[in-house]
């Protein structure tokens, strides 16, 4: 008869227990986030990335990149004007899920993180940006493409990677310039894009710029990156339409499938032209698809391998983690550097002062871009820009614009010739 009472207690018990076991070190009374971190010895920066689940490959790299930046700052003596305070990275696993990202963000802020970096998945970044804004803790986005994140009027959110609009526009410009230089201007461009917000935004921006450069666009084909398993039909449609260039906006797995299908179908293109493609500029892409990927272009944000500091970082990463560093990890590295730099100028861990300092950032980047990192009033990195890369002899090379070029672009680069 006393059952229901038992039930009530049974519910209440684990709730409280779990909450107590939750996480935070006792005594951190964290709302503002600011007070907790700054007392001279260590300053905590929160790193939120998908460390498990489908995006774990990039997520783990990015967390490593952030850690390397923290180590670099500490080795150089910490934050000088805060008595050489050391940085500490607190990592959270978002699992690529918005609600997990949110509670992890809350946890990091509660543990005293003065700023957050992250998160790779746009959906998670949107969520964390809202958390950061409401807690008034600066949030520096390393990677997340959705333009909507910064269109909410948030004061505490900044982004390093170029917006989809910039990526798409530059992608089309580079195509016009490179093909013209080669004396074989691109005329009809087919578009193959994933159907999510990222692929759609790239396709729209690219279409607008390419048409203003006098190219015709068509056919435009979208696909579901989560379920697609073969592209031969789509590539056949491109071939039958007689396009001379195919623009591809998508992720890694589908990018590999596109390369295989191009190899099979032989669509007779002058170029396969990725824009912010998740596959064509990764170090493992040429290895996975072999000759099929030879000559593929990709216009994307990119770690600057012509920069000595970047080379040193890549070397360090290889030593530490036995893997090639990806651009995403370099962006995480930069994001932590932005915060460290702002801490050094604000000489304070007060979140509002830190935010103001970040908004006045002018910091050299390890990413190839138009100038130093600097944020406009929406929080966008105004010098962020893509460069053009190409798979040459089985490795990804920077080919355009010339100041970043490791080698000359090969155009036309008919993948099967």
């Amino acid at each position, binding site marked *: 008869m006393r059952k229901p009472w038992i039930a009530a207690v049974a519910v209440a018990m684990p709730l409280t227990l779990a909450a107590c076991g939750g996480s935070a070190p006792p005594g951190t009374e964290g709302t503002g986030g600011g007070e907790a971190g700054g007392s001279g010895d260590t300053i905590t920066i929160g790193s939120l990335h998908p460390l*498990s*689940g*489908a*995006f*774990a*490959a990039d*997520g*783990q790299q990015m967390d490593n990149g952030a850690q390397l930046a923290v180590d670099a700052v500490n080795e150089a003596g910490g934050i000088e004007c805060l008595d050489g305070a050391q940085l500490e990275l607190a990592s959270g696993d978002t699992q690529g899920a918005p609600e997990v990202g949110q509670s992890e963000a809350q946890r990091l802020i509660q543990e005293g993180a003065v700023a957050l970096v992250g998160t790779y998945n746009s959906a998670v970044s949107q969520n964390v940006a809202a958390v950061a804004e409401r807690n008034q803790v600066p949030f520096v986005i390393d990677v997340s493409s959705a333009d909507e994140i910064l269109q909410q009027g948030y004061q505490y959110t900044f982004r390093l990677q170029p917006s989809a609009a910039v990526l798409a526009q530059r992608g089309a410009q580079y195509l016009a310039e490179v093909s013209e230089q080669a004396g074989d201007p691109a005329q009809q461009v087919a578009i193959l894009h994933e*159907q999510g917000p990222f692929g759609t935004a790239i396709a729209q921006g690219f279409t607008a710029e390419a048409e203003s450069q006098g190219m015709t666009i068509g056919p435009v*084909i*979208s*696909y*579901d990156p*989560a*379920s*697609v*398993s*073969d592209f*031969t*039909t*789509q590539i*056949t*449609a491109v071939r*039958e339409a007689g396009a001379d260039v195919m623009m591809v906006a998508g992720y*890694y*797995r589908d990018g*590999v*499938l596109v390369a*295989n299908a191009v*190899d*099979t*179908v*032989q669509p007779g293109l002058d170029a396969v032209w990725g824009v912010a493609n998740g596959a064509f500029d990764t170090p*493992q892409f040429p*290895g*996975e698809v*072999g000759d099929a990927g030879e000559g593929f272009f990709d216009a994307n944000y990119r770690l600057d391998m012509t920069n000595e500091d970047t080379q040193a970082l890549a070397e360090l990463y290889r030593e530490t983690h036995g*893997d090639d560093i990806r651009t995403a990890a370099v962006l995480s590295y930069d994001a932590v550097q932005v915060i460290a730099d702002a801490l050094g100028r604000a000489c304070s861990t007060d979140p509002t002062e830190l935010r103001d300092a970040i908004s006045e950032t002018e910091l050299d980047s390890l990413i190839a871009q138009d100038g130093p990192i600097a944020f406009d009033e929406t929080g966008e990195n105004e010098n962020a820009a893509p460069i053009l890369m190409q798979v040459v002899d089985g490795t990804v090379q920077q080919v355009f614009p010339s100041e970043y070029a490791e080698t000359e672009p090969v155009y036309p680069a008919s993948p099967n010739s």
Partner: protein
Amino acid sequence: MTDPTREHGAPPLDRGTVSTEEPPQTTQLTTPAPGGRRRAVAVRVAAVVAIAVVALGLAYWRTGNEVVVTQAVLTGLMIGGVYGLVAMGLTLIFGVLDIVNFAHGAFLAVALYITVEMVGRFGAHPYLALLVSVPLMFLLGAAVQRFILSGAMGKPLENQLLITLGLALLIDNGLLLFYGPNPQSARLPNDTGINVFGAVVTVGRLLAFAVALVLAGLLYLLLQRTRLGTAIRAVAANDSGAQMVGIDTRRIYMATFAIGTACAGAAGVLVAPLVTIEPTTGELFNIVAFVVVVLGGMGNVVGALVGGLLIGLTEQLGALYLPGQSPLLSVFIVFVLVLFLRPQGLFGRAA
């Protein structure tokens, strides 16, 4: 296994899903009575041909290019073969154990990584991994059934669902732990394209397709011509009855689950050269495999193969009809229609 072309002339609505009153395992592995089979076959063939003609006509009308349509059909068939291959083991488990096995995709992923190991460590041809993968996965399946799932037999659907989901999580994340998140590959050497009526197909896909056919045939023979197969069919039809005639149903459950998992093992090896191998790759096939199982009729191995082909075609042609929509949408539309109109599956026998 039931010959899919034979059936009773029972009204389609009075049908063969699990019914509440009777013992749950009332599936189509029973030997059918031969009544009315010619006419039913003729009607069904005519219906299929009519739908095919309309589908192709529509596709041609939407694209205006016969090469694209040919390519869509060819690719659809090839992908469909893979779907059928993945669904075969699943349909067997579904039909005999009455378990909705959400870990099937995860088992497939294990086979993918076995292939990666064989290729990477021993430099073997990817398909040689079949020799390792199939027996290993057979044992794994037997162990999983014996030690984990046997406790869930006869339990409510939601309990079984959660256990297999838990298994899937366990396996996927185990792979992540051991192999890390970086994508791997196991490419076929010299995988070239072959021209078919202006459309192209790679040797790898053709091979996977052919092996799917062979495998379906072997499974069919196993079920029809061996004592084990007969026992499996008996258990599927009526497990308490089977027990009464002296069949050790627990052993049959274990054997069936092991065979089903071994099928996932074979499918994994064949699919390995066609996909990017990540810990979550297997999940890609899970949903489609369930659709195929229902389409083919649960427990029906040949039905699964044909169902796979139909889904492959639906996906490819659907992308031509509804550009800008996910091809999965057309798959689900077909799925729901089949559920409503022929819940025993296109090739199932009405109970």
